[in-house]
């Protein structure tokens, strides 16, 4: 009876250190395993613009760290009306519906207008010229079907940890999306 003491056995300094080292080693190993596991899933994230939140503020053109913004206008052809008077292409009050620079909305002439058949025209974006200013997007969204919209193009984006545009995005439209599904595209009904 006397041998079963109610007090726990005292821990010596050596034993304490040894146990502590074991716990630290196990914790470290767990951390390594966790890190390896997370790396092995390959889940990477990239920046993208939610077109439904975009307010066409113009910041994409001026705040990207790249000299020419990685944000470009893209075109959902299935939504496009192929309008003769495209409000994404023409100034609000054009002198004539032709390709004269004075009639065009895009500040860098990045939209090409091609005749299809009377009275339909196709509009394509030259991404080398597009600066992502969203002027055409506003025109198309205000009057048309909203087939023109902005997206971060991942052949150019350097995927900054803190995207400079996202910090100033007026519509809070920038978000992280999985790298294997890097675009948020508009679709038809």
């Amino acid at each position: 009876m006397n041998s079963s003491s109610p007090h726990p056995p005292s821990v010596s300094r050596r034993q304490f250190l040894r146990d502590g080292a074991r716990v630290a080693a196990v914790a470290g190993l767990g951390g390594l395993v966790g890190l390896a596991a997370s790396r092995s899933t390959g889940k990477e994230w990239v920046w993208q613009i939610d077109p439904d939140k975009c307010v066409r503020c113009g910041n994409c053109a001026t705040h990207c760290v790249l000299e020419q913004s990685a944000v470009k206008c893209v075109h959902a052809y299935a939504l496009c009306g192929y309008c003769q008077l495209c409000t994404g292409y023409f100034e609000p009050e054009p002198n004539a519906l032709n390709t004269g620079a004075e009639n065009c909305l895009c500040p860098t002439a990045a939209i090409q207008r091609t005749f299809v058949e009377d009275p339909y025209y196709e509009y394509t974006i030259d991404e080398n010229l597009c600066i992502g200013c969203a002027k055409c997007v506003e025109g198309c969204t205000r009057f048309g079907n909203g087939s023109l919209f902005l997206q971060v193009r991942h052949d150019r984006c350097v995927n900054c940890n803190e995207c400079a545009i996202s910090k100033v995005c007026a519509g809070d439209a920038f978000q992280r999306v999985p790298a294997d599904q890097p675009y948020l595209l508009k679709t038809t009904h």
Partner: protein
Amino acid sequence: MSTQDHSKNRTECGSDAAPQKEALSQGAPAPLNRRRFLVQGTHGVGFLALGSLVSGGWTTPGNAAVNRFAYDVERFSTTDPKFLVYDRAGGFPIPDPAPRRIVFSKEGQLYVAGKRGVSVLDRSGGLIRLIEAGAPVRCVAVDGNGQVYAGVRDHVEVFDPAGRRVRRWEAPSKKAWLTGLAVSKADVFLADSGSRLIWRCDLEGKIIGKIGEKNPERNVPGLILPSPYLDVKVGGDGLLRVNNSGRHRIEVYTADGDLELFWGKPSAAIEGFCGCCNPVGLALLADGRHITCEKGLPRVKRYAADGTFEGVVAGPESFPKNAQAGKARDSEDGTMGGLDAAVDARGWVYVLDLVAAEVQVYQPKGAV
């Protein structure tokens, strides 16, 4: 020693102080010691910081900056008062989150097509009854007997005056996307944005003709509809008014499909139809004049029977929610906001705001 040295220094300084005082009295600047330099420097930094705060220099540059790429339609967003020929007489909300079309019945009741069905309202907006169609109703018409025709995407549901379902018409085509309806004594006309034409049906739903389809032999250019807003109205003269929005004009057809005349031009200026595709809604006054509705720059205008611009019922400033681009994007419906209108027997215009889900009532200027 040190005390003596200090006193000595003071004495020495004192010996030089006399010329300094003399210089100060003559307006020369005082020399800066370290303490004064630091105090003045702190004041300077403080003032600079305060100035930056006041001027907004510390706010986020992107948010504070003016958008130099702005799409500028500001000059069209207010209406010159000299063009206004109507006064606002009131308004009321619609008990439907997504209304689409509005018409008056012969008895003076409002029928509003919307997501929940057809809302039947009195002139002050009181709900008389809701006719449910099992799906969103995109357009509606009421004949002289009170029979209700409701366009449900690709087909028509017919209801008796009490709101009981009478029958269902089959879809006129696989591409049907009904966005407008009109009824005369013997015919019902279905504005089909999907097929880009007007179907002429008898009162039993049997198709007896097509109107507006491209036909060079009959000199019909065809309807251009970048967005699904095709509308149709039947005038007292028996002629159909159709909005060919992609061509920015109103076309007038006989019931047999002959194009009689057309009018309208593209322009953001007040007398024209703005944007890519307008007008999006139509109403007819008893004397044959037209009320037109536009989207993008939401405005309601009145034109004479021959298309001469007469004045503005309500301009973009009357529809602030509607004027915000993209606010009403509905990928299910394919619509981007807009307006529709109905006219009562007095000539008052009831404007349906698709974005705000409300009706605004306008009476002609000078009307009692």
